[in-house]
């Protein structure tokens, strides 16, 4: 039990007549970056609220670092940093003052942590500018700084890159990777930008209609979303011979519809085309294709849009 940062056992949450979470069983291991993927209303934020104590499960049990029960959970939450949906900020205060409120309430004695955090998220030069005058991206950065203020062991970020420009997204991605690598920080990150999650996370959790529908490692997802060269020809048997003898590869698959999936030469279609042409094989289709994370996710939830 203690090996897991977070464990839930059949956790459910209902709001009057809506079942937001349905018997969720999850185990998050230390030192990993979990991408939490689901549509709007799938239950991601509800789950995060339960973990952070903002709401209470209707049923089931929740463990943080192996501890359960309201009192123990409250104590363990001191080890968590969280940014949930849009950052909650005091608009009439500066970025430094917002951080100071959190420093005081968390009982962090070292005041220098405020400047360190402002530098870390690129807000060191905001000076006396009130937070209500910040752009959405600046607010998001400040929200991340607030979540990191206590140097948490477990960081929960709900849609952290909303409103960030491309450079900001890359910065935050690198920051998260560094925190994970250097400090062993476990991170649970939900986002609508699936490609971004793909670039950041080591593990993926798919949620739909309050139920966990799949958990995958990055390697497993890569396998499922593998890119390949699709070869269409009326003579697939001859084409396979060419692949084996001329291109010296057995990394292909003959599909039931007689197309060939070649998992090599993705960047070198010319060589494949030349080899097949030399063998006088008629090629009706030759292109790189495969599942994207978006397609895979849509397939999982039954083709509905709005990831």
């Amino acid at each position, binding site marked *: 039990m203690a090996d897991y940062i977070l464990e839930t056992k059949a956790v459910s949450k209902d*709001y009057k007549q809506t079942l937001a979470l349905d018997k969720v069983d999850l185990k998050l291991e230390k030192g990993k970056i979990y991408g939490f993927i689901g549509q709007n209303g799938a239950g991601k934020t509800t789950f995060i*609220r339960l973990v*952070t*104590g*903002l*709401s*209470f499960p209707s049923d089931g049990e929740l463990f943080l670092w192996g501890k359960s029960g309201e009192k123990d959970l*409250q*104590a*363990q*939450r*001191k080890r*968590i940093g*969280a940014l*949930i*949906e*849009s950052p*909650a*900020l*005091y*608009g*009439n*205060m500066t970025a430094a*003052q917002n951080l*100071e*409120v*959190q420093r*005081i*309430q*968390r*009982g962090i004695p070292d005041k220098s942590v405020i400047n360190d955090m402002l530098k870390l998220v690129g807000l060191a030069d905001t000076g006396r500018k009130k937070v209500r005058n910040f752009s959405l991206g600046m607010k998001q950065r400040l929200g991340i700084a*607030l979540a990191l203020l*206590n140097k948490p062991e477990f960081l929960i970020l709900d849609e952290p890159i909303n409103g960030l420009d491309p450079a900001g997204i890359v910065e935050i991605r690198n920051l998260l990777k560094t925190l994970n690598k250097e400090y062993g920080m476990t991170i649970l990150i939900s986002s609508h930008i699936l490609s971004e999650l793909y670039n950041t996370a080591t593990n993926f959790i798919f949620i739909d209609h309050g139920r966990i529908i799949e958990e995958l490692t990055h390697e497993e997802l890569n396998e499922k979303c593998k890119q390949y060269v699709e070869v269409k020809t009326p003579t697939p048997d001859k084409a396979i011979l060419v692949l084996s003898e001329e291109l010296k590869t057995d990394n292909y698959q003959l599909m039931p519809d007689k197309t060939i999936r070649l998992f090599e030469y993705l960047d070198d279609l010319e060589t494949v085309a030349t080899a097949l042409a030399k063998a006088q094989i008629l090629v009706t289709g030759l292109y790189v294709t495969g599942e994207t994370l978006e397609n895979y996710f849509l397939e999982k939830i039954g083709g509905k849009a709005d990831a």
Partner: protein
Amino acid sequence: MLKIIKAECYKLFHSIYFPTIALTYLLLFTSNLFDSYRRTQNIFEASIRNIAFPYFLILSMGVCFFGTDFDQKTIAFYISAGHKRSEIFLAKAIVFMLASLFITAGSIFVHIFGSIPFLGHTLTAGYVVENMVIIVPALLSMSAIAVLIGFAFKNVGGTLGAGIAVQLIVVAALNSKTNALFFMKYLPVGHSALIVLHKLDEPAMNYITISIIWILVCLMGGYLFFRRADMK
């Protein structure tokens, strides 16, 4: 809990609404002083005669103090940081009630000390203390009602609407033609009226007890609304 109290004090002293409401309260509280002074026996009575009038400003402060914290979701920081809800509630209630007392009781003392250059020392310390012993719990219980409303509605609109409704009910009750004295005794805000009318016909402890009961009921009610509430 001390950490939350410190954080709440930091927020309060860095806010615009606290000094603005304090100043507006003092101005409104003072605006009727000259008229009241002609109708009462001394500056203390003149001062507390209008105590219910600017009460809506304390309720407004409740809107800023509690309503915006729920609306902006900033109260979630305390919860997700692992503080007990009871500690969060108590810390916020304590800071709010003391801030309100600073404004309300402070305004009375401004009147008393501010009048000395014009009227001289017309009041004895004993007289002021004797009456403030009743007034201070009454003022605290008035702000406890704002705490209850703030935690019950958990948003700006509800807190403001309920606050205005409470103000209207209190004023109507105190001006009741048939039961005014009854309401003055059992509504904390009415204790000041009893002092002005010289109708304190029971021991001070009875009035203090009524105020304490109001405070406890409001705080317990507010906590019950917050204890297991799902935050936005």
